[in-house]
């Protein structure tokens, strides 16, 4: 298939394809970060993660409508406000869920799966009752759509760059919070030894609650960002859940670096395969490869060296 094209064409496509892979990488990281915190640090299997993302998307949609209605002149910048609101809304719901549901289940990780599955059903139906069964279209400011022509033939999508920048920013923020802040030390102390952490005076319940809220809040930001590339409907959250879990597990659950590395390798594999095969087959082969590798190396790419 490559015979008829000039070197310049191929170079341009290669560059754009590389960029497509990077965008997919950012999307995966953004999806997985919240879950990496919740699942990786706390061991909670949050099947409602996708629904927290969609909450962020709906908040963005509402903000967009409100800004258009009350302050149309601010519309070009509304997206930043929307992301903050999405973070707050999803984070608050997450803390509520943690308080009402999750904190009773820390000793039974598999049961969190069932309970959060029930939660996801309820949230889906709630979205359907509140926002209607149809998808909503989130209108974006003009500057976010379209592409930036790097050369005559290479065009880089602006929303792709936006997602990448956002991902980088949030990753750095999360890394800072978890590894350098005082609160992050508390989180990691609770993860490593709950009893001991309590004994040295850390309020473990509070730490749990905020950690879960942070994870959900990041999911909300991800959902908000995904209105640029995906659909917003009551059941759209389910599309993301398997990919997200695989990214986290493949990376080695407790490691932030692992999550990033796994998102990178999965996204590159998939986008390369997609270029040479059909979309469906690319997906199957990528998933099979991940499962195959996980069978050989169950602890994931980067596992913390913890003695069991």
């Amino acid at each position, binding site marked *: 298939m490559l015979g008829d094209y000039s070197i310049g064409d191929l170079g341009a496509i290669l560059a754009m394809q590389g960029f497509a892979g990077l965008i*997919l990488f950012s999307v995966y990281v953004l999806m997985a970060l919240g879950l990496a915190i919740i699942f990786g640090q706390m061991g909670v299997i949050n099947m409602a993660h996708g629904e927290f993302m969609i909450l962020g998307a709906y908040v963005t949609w509402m903000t967009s409508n409100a800004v258009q209605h009350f302050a149309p002149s601010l519309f070009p910048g509304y997206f930043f406000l929307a992301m903050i609101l999405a973070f707050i809304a999803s984070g608050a719901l997450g803390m509520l869920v943690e308080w009402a549901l999750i904190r009773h289940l820390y000793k039974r990780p598999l049961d969190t799966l069932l309970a959060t599955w029930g939660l996801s059903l309820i949230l889906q139906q709630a979205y359907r009752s509140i926002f209607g*069964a149809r998808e909503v279209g989130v209108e974006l400011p003009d500057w976010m759509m379209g592409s930036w022509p790097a050369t005559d033939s290479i065009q880089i999508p602006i929303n792709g760059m936006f997602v990448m920048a956002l991902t980088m920013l949030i990753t750095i923020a999360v890394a800072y919070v978890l590894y350098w802040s005082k609160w992050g030390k508390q989180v990691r102390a609770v993860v490593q030894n709950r009893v001991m952490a309590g004994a040295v005076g850390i309020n473990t319940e509070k730490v749990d609650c905020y950690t879960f809220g942070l994870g959900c809040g990041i999911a909300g930001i991800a959902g908000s960002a995904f209105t640029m590339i995906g659909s917003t409907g009551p059941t759209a959250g*389910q599309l993301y859940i398997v990919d997200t879990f695989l990214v986290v597990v493949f990376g080695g659950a407790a490691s932030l670096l692992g999550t990033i590395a796994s998102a990178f390798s999965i996204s590159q594999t998939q986008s390369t395969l997609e270029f040479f095969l059909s979309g469906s087959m690319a997906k199957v082969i990528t998933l099979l490869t991940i499962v195959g590798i996980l069978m050989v190396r169950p602890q994931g790419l980067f596992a913390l060296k913890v003695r069991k």
Partner: protein
Amino acid sequence: MGMAALPAITMLPRPSFADVPATSAVNTTGLAVTDSEVTVGILHSVTGTMAISETGSVEAEKLAIEQINAAGGVLGRKIKFIQEDGASDWPTFAEKAKKLLVNDKCAAVMGCWTSASRKAVLPVFEQYNGMLYYPTFYEGLEQSKNVIYTGQEATQQIIAGLDWVTKTKGAKSFYLLGSDYIWPRTSNKIARKHIEGHLQGCKVVGEEYFPLGSTQFNSVINKIKLTKPDVIYAIIVGGSNVAFYKQLKAAGIDLSKQTLLTISVTEDEIDGIGGENIAGAYACMKYFQSLDNANNKAFVPAFKKMWGEKTVIGDVTQAAYLGPWLWKLTAEKAGSFDIDKIAAASPGVEFKGAPEGYVRIHENHHLWSKTRVGRAKADGQYELIFETADLVEPDPFPKGYQ
């Protein structure tokens, strides 16, 4: 359970009005018909992933039933409907279809949306002899005494559109895209046969499928940029549409310059995609909300009055609206609610009040209808560009396209 049928059997025939035929005469097979009422079923998903698409159909069917009742009903009887939820789950569709036929004795069922749900209920309708009015455009390759297909089958929708695009745009190369299931695959197969076999000098430069719900299209967009097809032929469904068109726009493919022809995006989908993201694309189907005819000018305000100013009406919604009307006209032609008589009387039934203009039922239980090409505008509506001069004959088993 099963009680709905009882009144029809136990009630003594009352002296009927002159213009209302006796129940015993119009209902010889124990359907749920009384002297004043006739029961039909509505079977769509109002929960689950398909609720997004099927909501419009439910709304249209309810509107049609209300209008028919306001106009005096069918054979002097008001239509009463029983709504069941298929829950986007095919066995649930089969189960509910059976309930509607066996327990509720519905005289007709308006329902189903996806091919899979239709395939699941088809044996049920054939076994228990029910009547299904199916609204979606679909892949064809099916014909049943017990189903009236009020949407277009694939050849009706595809061939006229391809002819139009080659003639007016001088298109020579096509890139075929689709969600990975039977309707896009069969439709693209027909499209490919037509492009390669019937259109001079035209070729297909790529064909690809994506899992349902897929949200990443950047790779295929790059391939499209590499192959530079004259026409992108897209049959992507559901939430994937939103991702596809947004990413297409973000990648700098300007639909005012690049021709894109779709058969899967109705006004309903544009609501989710956002008109500004798809403006300029061409859609090939039989109905657009913006059609300029007297029927449609009455239909659109009525629909909005019932379901809100903001609702939009797509091709399938309109086809769903035809179901109850066609059934009423057929029952009046047959002078009976009996399924066998309805099935036999269906061919030739005309509906002059159809929002799309005029339709007629073919011998093969599909509809004769015009095929139209519309161009998407930023406000989410289509602007009519082209329509076939005559009604297109439905051909569910097209020779040379299989």
